[in-house]
């Protein structure tokens, strides 16, 4: 079907992911992030039955600490890999960037701008000695950041104050947050590569050291050296791929603010917009989703995602979780590989939410496999409540 100008729905179902790869690495001192990216790109291409020479489009985000590159990251990575792409994207909206790049690549493939696009990501955050934010701090202090950075903003504090507001407005409890960590850990139990697999209880979470209220240590994601990559192509071409391709049904992205003092709300996020756009394009509703990967930088972001995406009403995510909604047998199983809270988080978890979605739809989930999953959703935040990107995939 010829895409019609302005018709987003036109590429729904026209593009597929034919290959995915997540590195088994979690602690890899001495390994450069580019080496991990190459492992993942080659692994994803092999999964798709392709080689480097077949790639004409490339996207990555690698200009932050522990990611190995500077501002021209996508150029340097393309050079390192050995490709000279004619479709390029280095959109950087934080942890949601890989999902955003996948959405852009899908539109490009549908428009005939590229045939085979690789989207990849890697970082060595566990082994890197550079503090997150260190390289950009000087620039922040010369700009609007001069009104926030001097007050000691940390990533957990930024999300923590949002969680605090949610608890104030809706009565969300620390036990609700802890349940998210327990569920992710349960899903990680069978994932051979997960950073942490041993079972934890709500008490284990609440008795741990406080990082920034209301987050205890186990409320915060793991930090790893790792990476992942996906290979996109037209659905037509993917039909010949060695493994079952997964169709992209809907995509949305939205950006709200960088600095917390500019935020209009701390209990809703750009996910309200990215989710709505993804569901609209796919012609689906939350009830159609069999399994969801909701970026868990901490135990609170999945609660926000449940509400923003419409899986439960605003303010009711705590009860939804307490009633078992996100557990493997629940209404909406999430983070089936263990998520960022237990499996893998080198920096931008967006790529892994898509990889796990594909694995679930193929029946290859390494942690908990949701039987008969046919529609999956991958959702990520970027920065702290700054941006969101949502992707809906179908078997």
């Amino acid at each position, binding site marked *: 079907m010829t895409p019609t100008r302005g018709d987003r729905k036109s590429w729904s179902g026209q593009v597929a992911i034919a290959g995915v790869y997540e590195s088994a690495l979690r602690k890899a001192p001495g390994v450069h992030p580019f080496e991990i990216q190459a492992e993942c790109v080659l692994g994803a291409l092999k999964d798709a039955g392709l080689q480097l020479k077949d790639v004409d489009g490339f996207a990555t985000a690698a200009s932050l600490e522990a990611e190995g590159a500077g501002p021209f990251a996508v150029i340097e990575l393309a050079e390192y890999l050995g490709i000279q792409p004619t479709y390029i994207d280095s959109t950087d909206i934080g942890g949601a960037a890989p999902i955003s790049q996948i959405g852009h690549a899908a539109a490009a493939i549908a428009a005939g701008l590229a045939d085979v696009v690789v989207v990849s990501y890697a970082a060595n955050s566990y082994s890197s000695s550079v*503090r*997150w*934010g260190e390289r950009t*701090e000087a620039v*922040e*202090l*010369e700009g*609007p950041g*001069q*009104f*926030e*950075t*001097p*007050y*000691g*903003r*940390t*990533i*957990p*504090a*930024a999300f*923590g*104050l*949002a*969680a*605090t*507001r949610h608890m*104030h407005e809706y009565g969300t409890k620390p036990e609700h947050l802890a349940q998210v960590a327990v569920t992710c850990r349960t899903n990680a139990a069978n994932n051979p590569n997960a950073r942490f697999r041993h079972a934890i209880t709500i008490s284990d979470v609440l008795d741990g*050291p*406080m*990082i*920034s*209220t*209301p987050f205890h240590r186990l409320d915060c994601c793991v930090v790893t050296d790792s990476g992942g990559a996906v290979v996109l192509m037209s659905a037509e071409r993917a039909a010949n791929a060695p493994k079952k391709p997964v169709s992209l049904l809907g995509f949305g992205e939205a950006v709200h603010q960088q*600095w*917390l*003092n*500019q*935020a209009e709300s*701390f209990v809703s996020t750009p996910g309200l917009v990215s989710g709505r756009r993804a569901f609209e394009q796919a012609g689906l509703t939350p009830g159609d989703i069999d399994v969801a990967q909701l970026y868990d930088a901490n135990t609170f972001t999945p609660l926000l995602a449940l509400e923003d995406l419409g899986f439960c009403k605003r303010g009711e995510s705590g009860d939804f979780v307490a009633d078992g909604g996100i557990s493997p047998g629940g209404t909406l199983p999430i983070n089936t590989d263990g998520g960022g809270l237990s499996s893998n988080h080198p920096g931008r978890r967006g790529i892994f939410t898509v990889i796990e979605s594909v694995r679930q739809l193929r029946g290859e989930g390494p942690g908990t496999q949701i039987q008969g999953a046919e529609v999956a959703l991958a959702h990520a935040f970027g920065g702290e409540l700054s941006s969101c990107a949502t992707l809906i995939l179908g078997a």
Partner: protein
Amino acid sequence: MTELDHPSVDRPTPVPFEGTQRFWEEASAGRLTLQRCEAGHVQFYPRRHCRFCGETELSELTASGEGTVHTFSVVYRAAHDGFVARVPYVFAIVDLPEGPRVTANIVDIDPESVHVGMRVEATFDDVVGELTLPQFKPASTGSGSNNSHLA
């Protein structure tokens, strides 16, 4: 004595530019300034245009200094070396009655006593390098305002 009696030279320090110079000058004089556009929008942080409507005719508005804690987090593990000695400290978003929100630390109070909705007032004792960093402390009983904003 407050937790501000630590060497402050290592904390990230604002680097004013022409568009923000006025804010920092007024802060050193004990005043919190905002901008108002011709259409009546009040904004913070300062820009050359109104972020709500694009209007470029902006005037200065001195805030009352009153505020309410919109939300906060008590930081137990600092990310930046300059804050390690201050742990635990309160990282907060304060609602101003004039409309905007500001980022601040809540000082002169046990961090665990801070709560959402708490009335606070601006204080200008926190000197970082050559600048004064506006902070907020519990509002004094009664009017809750200080008189540092009087013209």
